[in-house]
């Protein structure tokens, strides 16, 4: 019955089925995730919350195809990521995912434009369309005048905006943001969140964001709370209010 349904309607963008993650072996084994189930549909903006050690980072690594589950299945558009090789997962990241990190992770002494071009280089986009796309992405985050500046010459907020431009320049299906405002003051944080919200709304990019800050999480349409390797609560914003 379920298989019949799977063929008739498209699979959800992301589906976790009883995902577990265990680090180490035997006595030293540490269970980071005890069977996680959830689905995320196209165009959602999900905030992932929880104290450190709750398993949210482990879950994000799996969702980012950087790590594979020990048990259960992680389906990305119906594809079981756990069965993919390291290189296949890299290709999946290259073509479907964008990443924004707490520490920005821009290349030093490399201009904003070149930083934004990086994922396009790996996609094999020729120079001219690449420059064009990177300029447009920088314009979208409001940094058209800063193309030639290297990260060292930019403020934290500007650096994070360059990083966002780098993440969305490939028009990914999913943007994974790990504490994107963790290193920024509240005014810059609001700017970043407004940018993310705009991309979610206007470009239909699904966003998964890890955050500690309930104010930032409030921008998301849905919040998933982790504790001790389990989901404590999974609520959309309307229910919460």
């Amino acid at each position, binding site marked *: 019955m379920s298989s019949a349904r799977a063929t008739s309607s498209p699979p959800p963008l992301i589906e976790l089925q009883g995902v577990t993650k265990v680090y180490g072996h035997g006595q030293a084994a540490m269970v980071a995730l005890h069977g996680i189930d959830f689905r995320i549909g196209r165009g959602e903006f999900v905030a992932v919350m929880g104290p450190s050690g709750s398993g949210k980072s482990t879950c994000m690594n799996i969702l980012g195809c*950087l790590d594979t589950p020990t048990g259960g299945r992680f389906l990305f558009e119906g594809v079981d990521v756990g069965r993919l090789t390291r290189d296949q997962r890299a290709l999946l990241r*290259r073509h479907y995912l964008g*990443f924004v990190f707490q520490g920005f*992770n821009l290349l030093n002494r490399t201009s904003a434009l070149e930083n934004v071009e990086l*994922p396009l280089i*790996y996609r094999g986009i020729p120079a001219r369309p690449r420059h064009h796309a990177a300029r447009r992405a920088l314009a979208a985050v409001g940094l058209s005048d800063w193309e030639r500046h290297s990260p060292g010459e930019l403020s934290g907020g500007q650096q994070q905006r360059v990083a966002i431009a780098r993440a969305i320049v490939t028009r990914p299906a999913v943007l994974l943001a790990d504490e994107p405002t963790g290193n920024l003051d509240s005014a810059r944080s609001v700017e970043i969140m407004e940018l993310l919200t705009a991309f979610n709304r206007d470009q239909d990019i699904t966003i998964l964001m890890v955050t500690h800050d309930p104010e930032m999480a409030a921008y998301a349409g849905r919040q998933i709370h982790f504790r001790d390797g389990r989901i404590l609560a999974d609520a959309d914003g309307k229910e919460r209010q």
Partner: protein
Amino acid sequence: MLWETILLSLRAIRRNALRSSLTVLGIVIGVAAVITLVTLGSGATAKVTADIAAMGSNMLQVRPGQVFGGPGGARLSTVPFESADAVAIAREIPGLRAVAPVSSRSAQAIYGNSNWATTATGSTNAYLEVRDWPLAMGRPFTDGEVRAGQAVCILGHTVHRELFSGDDPLGATIRLGKIAFKVVGVLAAKGLSSFGTDQDDVVLIPLRTLQRRITGRTDVGTIMVSAADGDSTAKVQADLTRLMRERRRIGLDQEDDFTVRDMQEIVATLTGTTRVLTALLGAVAAVSLLVGGIGIMNIMLVSVTERTREIGTRLAIGALERDVLLQFMVEAVVLASLGGLCGIALGLAGAALGTRLLDVPFVFSPGIVAAAFLFSGAVGVIFGFFPARQAARLDPIEALRHE
């Protein structure tokens, strides 16, 4: 993609200009050493060959006595040669271009107020042919002058310069010891011999004049023989040995009491020696290239550690293992090749300077330059591989977390 990667690595190298240059210093020095030493070695070989060719190629020297311990070694005193021996050689042995009996004696050359200690060499016109030595001016001896032993002379370039300070000496009269000689010609300059003596410091006179007027003896010191072009000097050497044994009545069970030296053998020996030296120097320099390669590996490993977060970011963004491997390999190869280019420039400059100081010709060998360049590139490949693999195999999660 490869071109992009090369541009990317050039940018990475420029970003760390100081460290990059220190990294490749080993390669630069290694390549420069190889190029300099091999070029100097080839120059020395070329000089020795040219010097000996200047003494007359295809030349054999026959001397009385056996030489022990190579050229310049002790010689047993024995029956000297006479002019008749040279005549017999010219008559009996086929395939000779010229035969010159030669004797020398040191002499004081005097002209006006000038006074110069030189060597009087007595021979015939065949000497000019054997030594392949043209005249700069004047004429050779006439048959009559040679036969009669007249007091005429041909000046070497050095003697001409010292006595006449460049003035026209033809027809002038100089004195060798107490005897007056009329100058009929001047030899072309020949320069230093490979043993460092000035070949132009000579006054050539007819052999009979030397024997009668200066030494008072009928000895001939050396008989110089020039084989016809293309003729095997080995055959001439065998013929000479047989003829001289006959003429000197040496029994079958007796050793030769004379020596036949083949200049081509000496050329082969000398060039062989310099070639071995060149190869040795090249080997030593190659070791320093190897050390340079280890330097590159060292710094590339540091670079991988330093750029762990960058690698993590690249992997997260979608770089494949082989993209990262390629990036670091290309960086190492580009770095090593740049070092190789610098080393080639430095090495050629060093070789140019060294050849001037040592007074040997500058022999540019494209082979060794190409080999040094390829070798430095290979050093980059070999020593870049391990650090690059280290980078490519990083776990992206760990790498992103790296401080």
